[in-house]
């Protein structure tokens, strides 16, 4: 299965996170040629050409991130220090040390194997926070940052001494919940997550951001008839970026996604609604009257969901549809009646 192969590949080539770093010699690649001592600018051009020739998407931007990453002190690799593409520009005439060249070589091999840049760096920015990311847990997408603002803008002003309890289904890396919690001090969040790897990553990121007292993760799968343990009776608001890709579109995904990310975080079934519908039912049970459910969806869902809702035994109705910054219908707000 490509999923397992990709995990093995990740361990072998990149020595990610908890796994030991293998030396370059064990990879079936050439060792870097250090005899010519190129400048950073030249290194950048070389890496860009190499990636471009291999038809790796975003070759120039990837090269910048990889170069910035190899210039970090060894201890910072895979920590949550943000690696910005422009770090290297401070000294374009500088040369790489042998250790840095070796690191860069390893990183380039990972990118040639189509490992997403975010996994190679080990961390990524999302909204107002920086989080760790690691395969196979789903990497947060830029559109989802808008879900954070949607949730925040719908909450009443904070009342001293009072807390609002929110529920997220499928936190993945924990990005959305943690960005929301970072923005407001009066919120408490419960997350339900089916993937053990994602549960661990969400907990790691929660510790990293010092939010352990405000976010709890429950392992479980939201499906029809599921009896989930560890949830409260009621939540003020429910939100989710659930798997919503239609099965037919799953085949067309680029290798960065199909080889490295957990496809269970993407596969929404034939109509992309296999997880969305049970979430709507769960929200109907956990929300008070007038309570909101906010979902990121596929652009076809605003058109097919209303009819589906009628066949469900639920009190949830569509309140509104919100476009993302590319103009696609990306978010749906449902309300409990």
């Amino acid at each position, binding site marked *: 299965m490509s999923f397992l192969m990709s995990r093995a590949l990740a361990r072998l080539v990149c020595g990610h996170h908890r796994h030991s770093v293998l030396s370059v010699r064990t990879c079936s690649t050439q060792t870097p040629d250090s005899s010519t001592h190129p400048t950073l600018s030249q290194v950048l051009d070389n890496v860009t050409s190499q990636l471009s020739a291999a038809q790796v998407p975003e070759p120039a931007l990837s090269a910048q991130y990889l170069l910035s990453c190899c210039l970090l002190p060894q201890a910072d690799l895979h920590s949550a220090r*943000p690696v910005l593409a422009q770090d290297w520009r401070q000294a374009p005439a500088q040369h790489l040390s042998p250790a840095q060249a070796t690191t860069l070589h390893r990183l380039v091999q990972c990118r040639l194997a189509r490992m997403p840049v975010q996994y190679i760096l080990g961390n990524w*920015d999302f909204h107002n926070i920086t989080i760790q990311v690691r395969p196979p847990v789903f990497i947060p*997408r*830029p559109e989802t940052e808008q879900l954070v603002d949607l949730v925040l803008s719908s909450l009443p002003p904070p009342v001293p001494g009072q807390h609002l309890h929110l529920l997220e289904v499928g936190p993945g890396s924990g990005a959305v919940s943690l960005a929301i919690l970072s923005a407001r001090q009066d919120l408490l969040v419960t997350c339900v997550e089916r993937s053990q790897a994602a549960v661990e990553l969400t907990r790691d990121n929660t510790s990293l951001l010092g939010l352990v007292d405000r976010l709890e993760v429950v392992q479980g799968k939201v499906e029809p008839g599921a009896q989930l343990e560890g949830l409260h009776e009621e939540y003020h608001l429910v939100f989710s970026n659930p798997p919503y*890709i239609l099965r037919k579109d799953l085949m067309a*995904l680029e290798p960065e996604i199909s080889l490295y990310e957990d496809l269970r975080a993407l596969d929404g079934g034939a109509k992309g609604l296999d997880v969305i519908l049970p979430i709507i039912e769960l929200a109907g049970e956990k929300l008070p009257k007038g309570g909101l459910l906010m979902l990121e969806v596929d*652009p076809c869902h605003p058109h097919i969901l209303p009819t589906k809702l009628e066949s469900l035994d639920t009190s949830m109705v569509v309140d509104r549809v919100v476009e993302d910054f590319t103009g*696609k219908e990306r978010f749906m707000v449902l309300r409990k009646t």
Partner: protein
Amino acid sequence: MLSVRPVLPSLLRSLPSILSRHKSHIDKSSVPRLDQADLQEKVTLGSGPGGQAVNKTANAVFLKHLPTGLWVKCHQTRSVEMNRKIAKQLLVIKLDNLVNGENSVENQKKTNEKIKLERKKEKTRLKYEQRKLESLKEQSEGQDGEIS
């Protein structure tokens, strides 16, 4: 006998006019406000399905103010929302400079920095003059015990 011109008193007299311009207060009242309807925003995510189906690292935000044609492009952070916020801030600065000229916040700050620098130079010059005067005084006292 040395004749020492009273240089110091005249400098002291001109100090207040220099110092009175010392104000770190920036007038922000005429900073233009951006009307959402006047803005055109484009995020470089490319075409295609977007959302979960795509994983791209490019997230540059291009923001244009339609009435004036001013535009900014921001790719400073790895977060789209952050880039959008920064792009808006940068566009406000550009618009402020265009509309308010030397009274824009940015130019007010530059002027204040210039004044600060001038004051510093003036202070140093005064110190130097004072020391020169004192050493001349000592010299003339040493010669004939009189100050003229």
